[in-house]
Structure formats: C-alpha cells, structure tokens
C-alpha cells in the first residue's frame, strides 16, 4: 500500500463540494421541489394499533371541491413489500392496519389544506383486533399475530466451539440481561416525495440514500420496466437509515398515476417521527466466562429485537461476534418478532449499538470479577487480523470461488486487517487513561452529590453489506478535460460526494475542482447499492476508484495514439497532464487530448471509465473499529449524567478527508451518547402510539450536552482492497459510546443500567425513587 503522504488529493481535509450551497441556504431539500402544475397529497393514518378495515368509503371526501383523487388498499390489491424490497413484508396498502400511524389512504387535492380536510371525510370502519407490543410477549405463539406468517422470525444462530467446555475452563462466569428502549431517527429535516407521470414513465423527486434500490422497488411494485422509472434523489436532513425505502414514495407514485397529475406528499415532523420507522426495541440476556489471566473462555448470548408492523429482519447483525469472536467458544442467537408498534428498521450502527453494548457489559462484569483494568481486558481479547469471522462461516463462504481472488486480497472469512490495539493504546494516552482510572466501582472524585469516573469501550461495524446488490460507477471525461463521476448513493450529507470526488480525482490525476459528482439521478448513474450499511467509502469508493482508473487508462491509450506510436505504458499523468517519465518533451494536457480529433472517425475521443472489477463480498472480511474514552459526572441527587471529557479513536484505514471523517466520528458518538442518556420513544401502553413525536418531548443532544473539544484520533492502517486503503466510517462510532458511558456510570455509582440511562433510572437504581 502506498504511503498516505504520496497522495495529492486523498487525505486532504478539503471543504465539502457543496459547502457553498449549504452555508447560503441554497441547497434544495426534497420539500423544496416544485414541479409545474403540481398538486398536494396527504396521508390518512390509522388511529388503531391492530384492526381490519371492513368498510372504507371515500365518496364524501371525493366530493369535496378541490379533491382530485384518493387511493386506498383497493387501488393496490397485490402490492407486496416482498416483491419490492427485502427488508419489509406484507402489503404496502393493506386492509389490515398494524400500528397507530399505519397508512390507510392518501388524498390528492389542489392545496394541502383541502387534502387535510378531505382526510376527515374518509369514512373507515374498523374491526378492532387485539394488539401486542412487548417483544418478549409477542414471541408467544398465543399472542395476537401481527403478520400472516406469525410474529416470530426463525432464530439466527452463530455457534462455535462448545459452551459447556468453555464454562468448565472458566474461573469466573457472569450473567446479566439488558433492555434497550427504541431510539428515534428524529430527523431535523423532513422528507417529501414528488411524482410525475409522463405516459407510462414516472419521475420521482425524493430523499433516499439508495436511489437505485428505490427505482427498482417502484418498478417492481408497479410492474413497469425499470427503464420507465427515474428517481432523482434530493438531499436529506440527517437520515441515519430513515430515508431508505418507504411507503411514502410508493404511495405518492400510485396517487400521481391515478389522478394523472404531478403530486407532492410532504411529511410533517410528527409523521417523520412516528409513522416511518425507528430503531428496534431490543432485549439481551447472556453469560460470559473468563480465566483469572483475563482470557475470555466463552460467550453465550440470546437477543430479541422487535420488527414493529412491517419489518422482517431475522437478525440485527452479528458483527459484535466478530469483535469478541477470538474466544474459543460462543453462541449467539437473535430472534426478530413482529409487534403492533411502528415499523422498526436499520438505524445507524444497527445491532452493534445494542448487542455490542451488551457484550461489552458482560466483559466489564467479568473484568470486575477478576479485577482487571477494562483497557487491558479489551487489549487482551479483541479480534486480530487473520482471526476467523465467526458469523461468516457457512454456506455463502463455501460457495465462493476463493482461488479466483487477486493476490494480496484478504482470505474470505477472516478479518483483513485492523488497528484496534493502536486505537486503544493511542486513545488511552490522549485521554490520560492511566492517570484517570482508579478501580472498578470507585469514583475518581466525589464532590457533594457529584461522582466522577471514566470508561472505555470498543465498537465495530462491517464496511458494507452486499444484500445481493453490486456497486458501480462511471467516470466521463469531457471535451475541456473536466469530468463527471456518476455514482448512485443519494445525498445524505455526510460528505460522500466530496470523498468520492477525492478518490476519483486522485485516480484520474486531475484537480478535484474539475470533477463533478452526480449521486442522485438514476437516469445518469449506473446501479449501485447506495449509502447504507457503511457501504459508501468502502464499496462505492472501490467502484469509483476502479472506474476512474479505467478512464485514466483510456486517456493514456488515446494519448499514446495521438503521440504516434508511444506505448501507453511509457506514459503517466499528473495534474491533468500526460507526460513520459523517460521523455521530457512529451506533454499533453487533458484538454488537448480531448479536443484532438481521431483520424479514424474525425470525432473527438470518448473517455468513459466504468467499474469492471467485481468487489469481493466485504461482509466476509472487512470491518472497521472504534475505541472511545469518556469521563462522566453523575449527580446522585438529581440522577443527571454529564459528559466531561471524550476521546474517540477510529480505524477506518486510509483517511480520505480528516474533517469529513471527524464529523462522522463525533456525529456518531453524539448519536450514540444521546441514546445512552436521553433518547427514548415513549409508547402509549394501550395503543403503542408514540407519545413524543417531536423535539419538544424527545430529547436529543445539543451543543452544551457533549464535551466541546473532544479528541479524535485515527488508527494507522491501510485496507488491502479499499480505494487507496480506505475503509468506511459512519456507524462504528455510534456503537462505542453506550458501553463506554455505561461503564463510567458503573464506576461512578456502582450500578449497571438499561438504555437510555435517564435520571429516573439512575435514581431508581440508587433506591432514591
């Protein structure tokens, strides 16, 4: 791997490509889109958690002046999620509602006000069904069944070694359980969808992290050719997985087709919070054994997550297994279960945020028993490069053609590389761990009711889940030597247009200012997975890199031809100029090359780089890691927890742009810390209705709630496959804060808490309320 300082563009903390639009407020979000003759839609949501629609009468609503059309389940009788998208199941507009807020109908009207008034005039009769809300109760076969195939998904199991043998060789065995409330995506922006049909072709403006997948879902849902669907993804305001694929877009497209006009449905804050999706409610129980020398002997963990009304996930991910899977014996079981709560789905750090926190808790409890420093315990046990990835053993791995992978690429099923020890050691130095650490359960300082203590924890995530979707990109070089990168990843805001541009410009040897990125238009971009599951820097980056290298090779071939007989291998490029290392007289600018007609066709050259190298399945080998350090102060009178100091370290391979990655790391830490301390959706006990669907009652972190100058350090590693050695960055930093803060709270006040660790939970645990 070439050294990072050899790069001219990669590694530079340049401003975001769209920074000027962002600070001037010119950036258009999905709700800002205006299409000529566009009308407005509103959605009717179910007031019941579980009911069958026996009658739906739209006649009164239709007769309201200004109403242009209404869709109900009768307009989409065979519209199944399974046919559109893999993460949800059931009918998109059904005659059965499964949570308060489920979609019942949608109205198009000349104004939002008329559409809202029409919703009141839709007469719906419901046969009320018994609901189920608690994930454990819903597992019972006698519980009300939310879905036709039953509530419980088949368990997903990862087993290695022998638990009983592990137990026998243990000096200590700890046992615990942990409950997690549901975190809201709590988007600061809103989403809207605008759909316009032209004959049998539809154009959709909306915010999605996965434009290609959205296009496919719409095409499959409506039974129209993929070529007839164009999705133009608009910028999101903080998405974290919320704006992936959803009912909003499918319903808008259906409504627009029915009325024959362009329709926009814009969700309000309550709809964004309470009717789209949320993080799963999760419950963990388990045991962990260790020897006196600090080596883990076994982990035995059972996990349950609720999928809400339409989620289908059999498991929330087993990447946590990878982090601690170096131990000789283990068993992880996860079960998904349907409930009559709003659909649950993948939110930033899915699975690792929760299961990871529980595994770290078991580790801490064992470390308490053998009285070992948590830093030392982690350094002793974390997975190393070359260790087997336990969750990846099995059929898919066996089917892969391992021999065909290029030399130097990682062995599938084993961790490719890591710098977690480096992150832990350097982070500890920066934080002053050795000076601040006192002992388990002992605060480092006591001042009246205030107890200070520190904590350290690690986190992990995969660099991308394939979900049977490829990544690809195109690089077009224009007549003046400027270039466009086409890669479908949406515009989530995390800086991926900038980092992809840095990859492409570095590979193409042109200035990053001469390269534009088209990330949202499916008519312009080749199909690619999109900005989910930490795909972008790693997998999309690989596709971009490959396409840009292809374009560069085409440029060198063209230049060689223009130079009348030079071999392309004798040429190279720098700053948009082709030169020969062996012949100083050779110098052609990209603009000169692109404006010189080919003698065989009398046309300018065509340079179109494309991804042609298939990427090996990154789930099989690629992980990135976080190690976080925190100092907390707990007030035992009020139960409040303050974060006083924070150091976040991360191993993301080569750093593409330090400021972009820093925002990902600290943004992830703040999202995780928010879940650790305050963020919880409150469900009404009898209905499952979300009682806090807005920022007034759902408390997210603000500037004074997190240390104002946190430390950020990056591990020294370079991935053997990723573009210029880069891995991804956005999700692992969300996973480490909960266990780090939870450990620090234990050290301050001697209790282990469920998540979030609200003041009420602190005071309850201390026996004060």
């Amino acid at each position, binding site marked *: 791997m070439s050294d990072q300082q050899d790069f001219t563009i990669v590694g530079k903390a340049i401003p975001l490509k769209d920074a000027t639009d962002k*600070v001037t*407020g010119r950036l258009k979000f999905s709700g800002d889109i205006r299409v000529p003759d566009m009308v407005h839609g509103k959605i009717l949501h179910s007031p019941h958690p579980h009911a069958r629609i026996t009658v739906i009468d739209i006649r009164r609503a239709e007769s309201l002046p200004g109403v242009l059309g209404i869709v109900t389940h009768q307009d989409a009788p065979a519209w199944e999620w399974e046919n559109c998208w893999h993460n949800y199941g059931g009918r998109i507009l059904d005659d059965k509602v499964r949570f308060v807020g489920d979609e019942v109908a949608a109205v198009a009207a000349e104004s939002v006000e008329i559409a809202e008034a029409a919703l009141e005039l839709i007469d719906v009769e419901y046969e009320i069904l018994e609901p189920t809300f608690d994930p454990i109760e819903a597992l019972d076969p006698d519980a009300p069944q939310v879905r036709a195939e039953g509530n419980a998904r088949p368990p997903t199991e990862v087993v290695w070694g022998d638990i009983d043998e592990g137990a026998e060789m243990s000096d200590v065995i700890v046992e615990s359980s942990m409950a997690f409330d549901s975190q809201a995506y709590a988007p600061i922006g809103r989403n809207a969808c605008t759909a316009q049909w032209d004959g049998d072709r539809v154009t959709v403006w909306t915010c999605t992290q996965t434009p290609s997948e959205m296009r496919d879902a719409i095409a499959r849902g409506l039974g129209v050719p993929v070529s007839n669907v164009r999705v133009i993804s608009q910028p999101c305001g903080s998405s974290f997985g919320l704006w992936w694929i959803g009912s909003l877009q499918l319903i808008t497209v259906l409504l627009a087709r029915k009325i024959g006009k362009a329709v926009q449905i814009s969700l309000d804050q309550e709809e964004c919070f309470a009717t789209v999706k949320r993080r799963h409610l999760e419950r963990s129980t388990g045991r962990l054994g260790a020897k006196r020398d600090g080596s883990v002997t076994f982990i035995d963990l059972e996990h349950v997550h609720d999928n809400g009304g339409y989620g289908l996930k059999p498991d929330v991910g087993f990447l946590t297994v990878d982090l601690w899977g170096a131990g000789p014996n283990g068993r992880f079981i996860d079960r998904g279960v349907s409930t009559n709560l709003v659909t649950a789905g993948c939110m930033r750090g899915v699975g690792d945020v929760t299961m990871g926190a529980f595994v770290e808790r078991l580790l801490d409890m064992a470390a308490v028993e053998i009285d070992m420093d948590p830093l030392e315990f982690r350094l002793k046990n974390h997975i190393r490069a070359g260790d087997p990835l336990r969750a990846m053993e099995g059929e898919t791995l066996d089917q892969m053609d391992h021999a065909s992978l290029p030399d130097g690429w990682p062995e599938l099923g084993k961790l490719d590389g890591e710098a977690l020890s480096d992150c832990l050691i350097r982070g500890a130095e920066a934080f002053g761990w050795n000076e601040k650490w006192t002992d388990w359960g002992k605060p480092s300082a006591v001042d009246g009711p205030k107890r200070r203590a520190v904590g350290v924890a690690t986190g992990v995530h995969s660099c991308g889940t394939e979900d049977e979707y490829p990544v690809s990109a195109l690089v077009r070089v224009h007549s003046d030597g400027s270039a466009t990168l086409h890669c479908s990843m949406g515009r989530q805001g995390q800086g991926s247009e900038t980092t992809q541009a840095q990859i492409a410009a570095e590979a193409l040897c042109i200035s990053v200012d001469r390269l534009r990125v088209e990330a949202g238009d499916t008519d312009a971009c080749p199909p690619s997975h999109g900005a989910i599951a930490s795909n972008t820097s790693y997998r999309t980056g690989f596709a971009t890199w490959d396409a840009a290298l292809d374009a560069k090779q085409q440029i060198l071939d063209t230049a060689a031809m223009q130079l009348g007989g030079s071999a392309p291998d004798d040429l190279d490029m720098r700053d948009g100029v082709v030169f020969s290392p062996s012949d100083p007289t050779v110098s052609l600018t990209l603009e000169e090359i692109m404006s010189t007609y080919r003698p065989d066709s009398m046309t300018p050259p065509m340079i179109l780089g494309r991804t042609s190298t298939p990427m090996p399945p990154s789930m099989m080998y690629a992980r990135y890691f976080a190690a976080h350090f925190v100092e907390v102060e707990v007030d035992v009178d009020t139960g409040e927890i303050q974060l006083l100091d924070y150091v976040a370290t991360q191993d993301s391979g080569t750093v593409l742009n330090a400021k972009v990655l820093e925002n990902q790391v600290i943004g992830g830490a703040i999202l995780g810390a928010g879940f650790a301390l305050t963020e919880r959706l409150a469900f009404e006990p009898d209905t499952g209705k979300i009682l806090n669907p807005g920022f007034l009652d759902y408390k997210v972190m603000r500037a004074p709630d997190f240390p104002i*100058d946190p430390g950020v350090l990056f591990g020294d590693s370079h991935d053997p496959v990723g573009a210029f050695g880069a891995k991804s960055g956005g999700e692992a930093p969300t996973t480490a804060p909960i266990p780090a803060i939870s450990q620090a709270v234990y050290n301050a006040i001697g209790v282990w808490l469920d998540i979030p660790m609200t003041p009420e939970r602190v005071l309850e645990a201390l026996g004060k309320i």
Partner: protein
Amino acid sequence: MTIEVSLRVNGLDHTVEIPPHETLGQVLNGRLGLNGVRLSCEEGECGACTVLVDGEAINSCLMLAVQAGNRDILTIEGLGTPENLHPIQQAFVDEHGFQCSFCTPGFVLSSKALLEETPHPEAAEIAAELSGHICRCGTYPNIIRAVQRAAEELAEEATNE
C-alpha cells in the same frame, strides 16, 4: 379572512395578503420562496427556521408574520452570496461546521447575533448560546470552532477598517 402585511426582508419590501395566523416562517418559506428558512419542528425547539428580526435571532415559527410588519428581517439568503460569503459562512465552510446542513442557516444567523453582542465568546459560551439549535448530525465541535474562527476573522476585519 386575510390581512395585508408589509415585510422588509433582506433589504427588499414585500407586501403579502395572508391569513392572520400565518407565522413569519410560513410566509418567508412558503410565500416568498426563501427555502433557507427551514421549517422543521414548528414549535420553537430546533432553531432551524431562525431569522434575524432587527438583529435579534428569532424562531420564525413562533412569530406571527403580522408581528414582523415593518421590521428589518434578515434570512440566510440576505447574508452572503456564493461569490462573496460572509466571514461566518466562510468559517463554517472551512471548519466543516455541518453535514446535511438543514440546520446551518439557523446556526449561522444565531452566530451572527451572538458575535455582534459578544465579539470574543468562549467555547462554552458559544455552546450555551447556540443551545436553541439542534444539529442532528452532531457536528457541534466543528460549529463551535467555526464560530471562534469567524470571531477572529471579524475582529481582524474590524482592525483593518
């Protein structure tokens, strides 16, 4: 029923016929097309719709448009242009004081009000003064650095004048 309201926005006079209950934010965004006035919570919790009214940072979702009649309103559209960014905007660019940027206009305008009142705020003071704003992406440390950098820049400009 509608009423006529005269608004002075970014130095230009506008007259709008509106229902009396319309908020300043709804008028600026919905009627005048100023998309930089970002409507999110519409209950004064997130700060995204912040504008300056006579120099004071106001949640435009909590002020009726009629209350802003004949007062000087500044939205992000009136602060700097792409070719000539205001020093606060430039500092947000340089320090990466945002990711998705939905909240950015509000943070920038409140920072302007803050720096006019307190030209050299401490980091903790900036954090406290901006606590009416939510950056859900969590870029607060870089926002605070941006405001500090802007303060230095503005102080230098003032010295040179």
